[in-house]
């Protein structure tokens, strides 16, 4: 049985849990991080010397870093579904996963989400939020073009690329930020949010995570 370490409110844990659920794998999730602590214990350092969530334990095989975990699960348990077959198709999905980290993660999570959840309303940096939202919107225009005529990022099937990029979309769409009208991205996000695994693991209300005064 798979074990996933990490609180369900972590966006990187959500990514892994969504993949686990799409693959229909029996699993157990163990709360760690945030209010649950545990990351500073010697036992956790054995699992992940970087003391972060998520960590995957697949019958004793321990792995950290969410995108490598998703690719591992996709290849091990979902070749031809979550992991595209063929070297070119696989590399294209991989590049969108990298893109989610190199181009949009910092602005959606590091700037916008952090400012609304971990900063009080009085100290909120509204100029930084607006600038970050603008950058994300500009980048999503390219995703919109990619999704033109395609149900999902790599074609007619949900893949690991949708998992990595899509996990960030619940927060993007529920944060009070300026968003350009992007018909294909809107339609794609709509189809993700109609999937039970996405609802269960990615659409986790973040309002309770706010610090007092946020």
């Amino acid at each position, binding site marked *: 049985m798979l074990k996933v370490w990490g609180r369900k409110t972590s966006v990187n844990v959500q990514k892994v849990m969504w993949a686990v659920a799409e693959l229909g794998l029996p699993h157990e999730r163990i709360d760690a991080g945030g209010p649950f602590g545990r990351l500073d214990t010697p036992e956790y350092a054995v699992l992940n010397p*970087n003391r*972060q969530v998520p960590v995957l334990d697949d019958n004793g095989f321990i792995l950290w870093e969410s995108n490598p975990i998703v690719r591992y699960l996709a290849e091990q348990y979902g070749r031809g579904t979550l992991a595209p077959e063929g*070297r070119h198709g696989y590399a294209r999905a991989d590049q969108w996963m990298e*893109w989610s980290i190199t181009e949009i993660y910092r602005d959606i999570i590091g700037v916008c989400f952090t400012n609304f959840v971990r900063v009080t309303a009085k100290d909120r940096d509204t100029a930084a939020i607006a600038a970050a939202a603008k950058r994300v919107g500009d980048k999503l225009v390219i995703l919109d073009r990619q999704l033109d005529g395609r149900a999902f990022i790599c074609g007619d099937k949900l893949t690991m690329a949708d998992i990595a990029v899509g996990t960030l979309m619940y927060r993007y769409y529920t944060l009070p930020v300026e968003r350009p009208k992007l018909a294909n991205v809107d339609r794609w996000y709509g189809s993700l949010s109609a999937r039970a695994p996405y609802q269960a693991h990615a659409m986790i209300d973040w309002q309770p995570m706010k610090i007092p005064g946020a």
Partner: protein
Amino acid sequence: MLKIYGRANSSNVRKVTWVADELGLPFERTDWGRGFRSTDEPEFKRLSAFGVVPVVDINGFILRESNTITRYLCARARRDDLYPTDLKARALVEAWMDWGSSDLYAGVRPVFMGLVVKNPAFMDPAIIAAGAAEWTRQMQRLDGELAANGPYLAGANLTLADVPTGIVVNRWYAIPFEKPALPHVHAYYDLLGQRPAYQQHVRNGTP
């Protein structure tokens, strides 16, 4: 023929040129990006709408994102030593690639942008000092990891796990700022420095 689009001093372009040379893969590189032709030019945008270097063209197959490119090139060359086909060994290599590109790199950016690029947004000494402190913390973590499990990040041989971190280690030594001695990192830097491809593309005097 492999074509690489991007300036030779970009950390992400250097990952690709270093790996291409490790694979013995001939390539042709053209300068694009900061200080050279703008990636906003239509010629570049036709190749990749994202306007970010590096982009590669391998017999018509266009790919971007440096870590993805190095994984693809190694898989295509069937270099199991650099990028294992065993899924578990492969995943551990990928985990270190992500660590070297995210956690380890987070503090590098403000120091590099402030002290090397001299980007106005990063000239505040407090921003540079905070970056240096975070970078140092992660480098100490790297030193401990290499002491315990070295000499390379994924064990006995060079793998793609070492590529993002190898770029950062060169920056660490090439940018003058106050830093602690890290003997295991230094030994790692020298070990990488024995490789002609690393010397040519990474440890070449450019931070």
